[in-house]
Each structure stands twice: as C-alpha cells, then as structure tokens.
C-alpha cells in the first residue's frame, strides 16, 4: 500500500509542508530569532483594524449567507430527486464559476455607472444612485454570492439525511406545517446549519480576490494585507507573521467545525 501513498505524501511534504514551515520560520527571523514581526502586529493600530475588518466582514457575509441559503436548501430538500437535480444547477453553476468572472460581473452590476445604478437613475434620477461598489456593501454582496453554494450544500446534505418518517409521524399526529418546521425540521438541521456557518466563516476569513476587487480602502482583509507586505513594503517578516495569525485563526474554527461534524472533517467510513 505504501507504493500508492508515498508519491502523494512526498509531494505534499515537499511542496506544502515545507513552504508552510518556511513561512513560520520567516515570521520568527530577522537576522536571528526574533519576535519583532509579531510585536509589530500588536503595536500598530492598522493590524488590529484589519483584524476587526476581517472578522466583521466574515461575520456579516456569513450571516447574510445563512439567511439566504437556508431557504434555498430547504426548498431543494423538498423537491423530488429529479426536480432537485435540475434546480441544483442554479447552485452548481456559480460554484464552478471563476471568482474573477463573478467579481467582474459585480463590478459591472454595482458600479456608479453599472447596471443597477443606471436603472435607478433612469427611474429616480441621478441623485438616487447608491454607492454599492468599493465599499463594505460591495464586498459583503460579493462574498455572500461566493459563500452561498457552500452554505446551501452543507445544509442540504443535513436536511436530506433527516428521516422523512419523523415528519410524517408528526403530520399524522395532527401537527401543522409551521409546527413541524419549528419543532422538528429546524432543530434537527442545527448541526448542518452550524457546520455551514463555520465553513463559510472559515472561507471568508481567507478571502483575497473579493475584497481586493470589490472593497474600498477600509475593507482590507488580512489576505490583502499579506499581499501588500509582499508586494509593496517587501516586508516578508510581517507578511509571514500575519499569515501565521491567519492560520491560527482558521485552525481554531476548523477544529470547531470538526467537533460539529463529529470529529470528521471529511467523509470517511
């Protein structure tokens, strides 16, 4: 069996693990061992601001995604398998579409002279135009759009594993649809909802393209800051320490996610 596993393991060790270790190493070195790259993070208000941004934007986007995603998952779960296979393409297409195409589309849609604002101006005049791009609104919209498929799939999977006999039994006993939903369907879907929320939060914390293309200067997230330090200030030390913080942050939520999924992050027997 080793012959099957060895190539992949060696590959990952060399090209994934080592580079990660290099990042960790770089975060602690400047000449010799040092903590200055980490001290930098706590000393300048910029970093805390960016951290706050990251958490805020992730939280907002995840919340909105949950609000929009649950009805879709619920709707899909209630369809016959054939209809569901057809409708799910609405969710799969954005899932498989390049983030750049999506971001570009939003740029066209949300800009000052974009489709939405042009339509608004046509009816209500130029003064009614809304700033939807290069600000928090734009980022959250773009982020939510990206996250929706993940939320929908996670919750849908959870809903589909619910035993349909439970609902039927409740129906026979006289419960109405609202009660069935609030007392049976919703509570049973909580693990799926929790998993979806954690997953989306994890994904949004690490986002790079969406805040870069749809956000304004006050919407910089941690990934963008890492990019800034690599590209502009050439400060690899701080870029690395930021990365390590990002990993740690992500790891915390990933472990929570593993907990929710019963100790399994990936399907196994």
């Amino acid at each position, binding site marked *: 069996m*080793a*012959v*099957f*596993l060895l*190539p*992949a*393991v060696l590959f*990952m060790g060399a*090209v*994934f693990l080592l*580079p*990660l270790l*290099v*990042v960790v190493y770089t975060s602690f070195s400047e000449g010799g061992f040092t903590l200055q790259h980490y001290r930098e993070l706590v000393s300048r208000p910029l970093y805390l601001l960016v951290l706050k941004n990251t958490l805020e934007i992730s939280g907002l986007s995840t919340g909105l995604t949950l609000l*929009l995603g649950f*009805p*879709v998952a619920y709707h899909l779960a*209630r369809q016959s398998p054939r209809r569901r*296979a057809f*409708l799910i*393409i*609405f969710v*799969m*297409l*954005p899932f*498989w*579409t*390049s983030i*750049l*195409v999506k971001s*570009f*589309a*939003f740029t*066209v*849609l949300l800009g000052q002279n974009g*489709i939405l604002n*042009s339509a608004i101006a046509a009816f209500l005049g130029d003064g009614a135009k809304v700033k939807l791009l290069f600000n928090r609104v734009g980022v959250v919209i773009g982020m939510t759009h990206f996250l*929706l498929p993940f939320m929908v799939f996670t919750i849908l999977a959870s809903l589909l594993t*619910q035993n*349909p006999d439970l609902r039927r039994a409740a129906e026979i006993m006289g419960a109405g*649809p*609202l009660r069935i*939903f609030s007392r049976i369907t919703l509570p049973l879907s909580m693990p799926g909802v929790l998993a979806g929320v954690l997953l989306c939060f*994890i994904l949004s914390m*690490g986002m790079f*393209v969406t805040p*870069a*293309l749809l956000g304004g200067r006050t919407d910089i997230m941690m*990934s963008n800051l*890492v990019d800034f330090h*690599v590209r502009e200030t050439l400060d690899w030390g701080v*870029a690395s320490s930021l*990365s390590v913080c*990002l*990993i740690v942050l*992500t790891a915390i939520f990933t472990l929570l996610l593993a907990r929710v999924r019963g100790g399994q*992050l*990936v*399907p*196994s027997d």
Partner: protein
Amino acid sequence: MASSRTPAGRRSAPSRAAGFLAWAVYGFLVLPSLIIVPMSFGDKDEFQFPPQSLSLYLYEKYFFESNWMDATFESLKVAVATTVLSLLLGVGAAYGLARSDFRGRKFLTLFLLSPMFVPVIVIALGLYLYLGSAHLTGTTLALVVGHTVLTLPFVIVTVLAGIRHVDRNLEVAATVMGASRWTVLRRVTLPLLRPTILVAALFSFLTSFDEVVVSYFIAHVQQQTLPVKMYSSIHWEISPVLAAISALLTALSLVTCLAVAAVQRDRQHG
C-alpha cells in the same frame, strides 16, 4: 423530504414565502454570470448593457490579441499538467487510504487534505518564499506544482467518495480467483472508478484554469496565466474584452457542471 402540500393540494403560506425567497436567491446566484453573456456581444470598446447591436467584436479582440492568447495558452498548459499530476498522485493515494488499515491512517488522510483548511494566501506566500529562494518562481513547473497542491486534496476526496461505491467484495472475489493486486486495480477497481476519475479530472482542470491567488504570487509577467491577467485588468484598467472572456469561462463552467451532473446520474443508474 416530501413537499408540504395540504390535503387540498394548496401549499401553506410560510412554504410559499420560502419558495418565493428561494427563487429570488436562485436569481441572485445566476444573475452575475448571466448578465455577462449579453454584454459580451457588444460591438464597441465600452460596457453596454444591453448591447446596442450584437457582434463578435469583443470575442475577436480576445482571440486576436496575443497577450490574451498567450495567457490562455499558459493557463491551458498548466491546467492539463496539473490535472495529470493530481490524478497520478491522487487516485493512488485515495486507493491506498481506502483499502488499507494502519495506525495513523486518519492522521495521514488529514495531512493530505490539509491544504483545504489553509487559507490560499498562506500557501501562496509559502510557495513564493520557498520557490523564490530556489529561483524557481515564474516557471511553468512552479505553477503546476502550486496548483497541484490545491487540487490534490479535492481529487483525493472525490476518489475516496467514489471508491465507497465500489463493492469491496468485487475486489475480494477477484483476489480469491487468483488476481494480483495490480490486476485487481487495473481490471476491476479502476474501470469502476472511471466516472469518479472523470469528475476529479474536470474539477482539477477547472480549478487550475481559474486559479488566481497562487498564480498571482509566483508567476512572472512572461508566464501570466489568464486569471492573473484578468485580475490585473479588473484591478487597474477594466476592459470590455473581459466580458467576452468571462462569457467563455462561464460556458466552460457550465459544460463542466453538466458533465459532472451527467456522470453522477449515470452512476446512480449504473
């Protein structure tokens, strides 16, 4: 889950509201990708929605501009190489994980899948520093390697899931009948995994073709991939050609999406 119709056949108000909201979200989901398409048929170097007259002007600009074509070709090269490498490494690894039972198997699985849990920017930075010190950035090899780090976990997850549908008894039967492990793999397991491997390949190809963050970090100007060039364009000087490119990419996504759905449907009727 059955639909919640009352015996009279009418759906309750809350479920109708939920349905309405669901359809609104479906619209939100596909709208961005779809508005691109009419825009891509515009005939001028500016954004028109809807376009005043239909033409292939923007598509011509894309296909006849060497910058875009070079970037596209580079992306194609890298995507194909990444797919091949990911499959070679991943199918075997998934088989090894699914058909063995040793201490630390769970840990090893987690290790092989860990890039899924690390933010892309960190992987990009790592590769940048690591390959940079070896003066390997800017090469096609570096891009292939970088992309494979991202696609390999998904290949493994996909094949692991697919192997679960391959009846283990088939392999036992073949073994008891005298087949060596390689024969079992070649004549029983792999043929039955064909649809799964196809899905993994499609996923790999598309992910690599659309990959931007890692490519942005480790590619040089001469080795720009299509997404990197698109990113720069959107960031700095937005060009209507992007509409044509986006429409083509959306078509590619749609084809992949339908192919995956068809393969999975086949497997259920298999």
